[in-house]
């Protein structure tokens, strides 16, 4: 009984780190490369081919080997190259406009479409409210036309 309990405990101790490692997906180079810039090239690191870009990739590989998460790697890159190494600008200062302008554009477009639809519906309602009764000739012509479609 005691032996069985010890075996169970050992299995649990060995299984826990393995399970934790399996649950935490390992960061990959392509995963980081498309979110950071090559500072000398002015392009995404993913697209950059230069000695500096290769150094930056080596740095990321070493960080991955050290078991760092994507966020930790990006923080370390910012410590080396500053905020401009991030492909997405920080949501502060002038760079905030990168987020605000598209959002304001969407709101303006939605308001424009809503106003346009409203105006169009009003115009079509106005056109459809002609309640003048048909005269005798028109009624006769309508009946003839409809009779033509009787099956």
């Amino acid at each position, binding site marked *: 009984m005691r032996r069985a309990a010890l075996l169970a405990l050992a299995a649990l101790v060995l299984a826990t780190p393995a399970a934790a490692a399996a649950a935490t997906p390992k960061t990959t180079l392509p995963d980081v490369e498309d979110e950071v810039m090559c500072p000398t090239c002015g392009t995404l690191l993913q697209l950059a081919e230069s000695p500096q870009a*290769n*150094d930056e990739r080596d740095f990321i590989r070493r960080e991955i080997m050290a078991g760092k998460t994507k966020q930790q790697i990006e923080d370390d890159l910012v410590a080396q190259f*500053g905020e401009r190494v991030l492909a997405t600008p920080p949501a502060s200062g002038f760079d905030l406009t990168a987020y605000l*302008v598209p959002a304001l554009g969407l709101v303006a477009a939605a308001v424009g479409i809503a106003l346009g639809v409203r105006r169009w519906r009003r115009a079509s309602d106005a056109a459809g409210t002609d309640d003048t009764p048909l005269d005798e000739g028109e009624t006769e012509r309508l009946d003839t036309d409809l009779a033509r479609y009787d099956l």
Partner: protein
Amino acid sequence: MSARTFWSFLGVLAVVGLLAFGLISKGGNSVDIGQPFPGRSLDSLDGSGSQSIADYRGQWVLVNLWASWCTPCRQEAPALEEFNRAHAKDNFTVLGVDSKDLTDNANRFVAEFGVTYPQLHDGPGMLADDLGTRGFPESFLVDPSGNLRLIRRGAVTADYLQTTVLPFLSGKAHQ
């Protein structure tokens, strides 16, 4: 002017103003000969604190922008070190600024070439932007008053240092 025209005009003006501001704030700068050298404070490469050119007031300083991944920087490093050692007594120093580079790689470069002059780290390349740098290496001679006297776009050679930089230190340069 109708209200709609006014708001349309205001919207267009805001977009144009925003674009202009972006271009101006991100646009390239440069410093001309005779102008004060930018006083940006940078961290020391060895992590021992921070410095700016103002800390060298009263001294001739050859500010050398470099990076460990830059091949011409490797070629000029021995000449810079030799010139610095030879003229340290002449109220002169080379001041290295490692730009857009990883600190570990830069420190390896310093050890490899036995560089003894002070080194600063400018990872984001802010000083390089202030100076309108087009590539690495570039060197800037700053006089004891903090004004720019020479610009060298590209690697320096022992000959350049002797024939172009040295006359300034000895007061024989054509002003």
